[in-house]
């Protein structure tokens, strides 16, 4: 049998797994980025709410 058969079979399996692995890495990076963004936006909301409460209190006084 053609010896390239085994090499190309290996390439085939490698390609299949590489594509799936690349996608998993992409998902992981996107997940980490979203997590960071969520933390940032939560802080932003908290700080804007705190600032709003402070100015409301000042107005009251």
């Amino acid at each position, binding site marked *: *049998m*053609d010896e*390239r*058969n*085994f090499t*190309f*079979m290996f*390439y*085939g*399996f490698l*390609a*299949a797994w590489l*594509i*799936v692995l690349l*996608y*998993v890495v992409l*998902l992981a990076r*996107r*997940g980490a980025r*979203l*997590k960071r*963004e*969520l933390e940032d*936006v*939560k802080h*932003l*909301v908290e700080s*804007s*709410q705190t600032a*709003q409460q402070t100015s409301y209190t000042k107005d009251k006084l």
Partner: protein
Amino acid sequence: MREKLVIGLSLGAALLLAYNLYEIFLVLPDEAMQGAIYRIIFFHVPAAITGMVGYFVALVFSVLYLTSGNFRYDSLAASVVEVSIVFSLVNIVTGSIWARIIWGIWWTWDYRLTSALVCVLIFGGYLMLRRAIDEPTQRARLSAALSIFGCVDVVIVWKSIEWFRTQHPGPVLSIRTGGGHIDPAMERLLYMNFYAILMIAIALVLIRTRQEATAREIDSLRRLANAA
């Protein structure tokens, strides 16, 4: 709950794949005419089926979104399309590598391969459309409409082997031919690998859907912060 499901699916897939790989490499003999390279079929065909089924599942979720307006369906549709494209790419690349040995060429323009590539292009356009629209409701609505159109092309892909004379091998699975075209042991392993790949696909979809929900949460918190 979702994390447990993802871990469970991944572990199940890993175990099943390990068993399947043992069978593929150590138990099954070489195919009479193709030699060792035929083993690519155990990833090529399951990836193809996963991709195609995924497009239809995305169609169902798109229609569900259009009828109910629930963004969860939109997230599911987008996630399923993305994962289906990945497995369609696996299908095309493994097919090309197989074809290089068996047909002597990396690619041929027969209708089956062309349609598979067209599916990837259409749903790639779906993902591009989603990135081009910022407003969530408009994005969900328009991408749902596009996925409905896209699935019409998937139907043409399915039917292409029967409609046109093609260089791609004809159907071999018993559910399409009634039996006799493929060794039963190979066919069994094909289905086993399909289940493994399906489990991986579902796990990836669940992770991606969670990310879509997080993105929506970020978007609504930003609006809240800007409103304040």
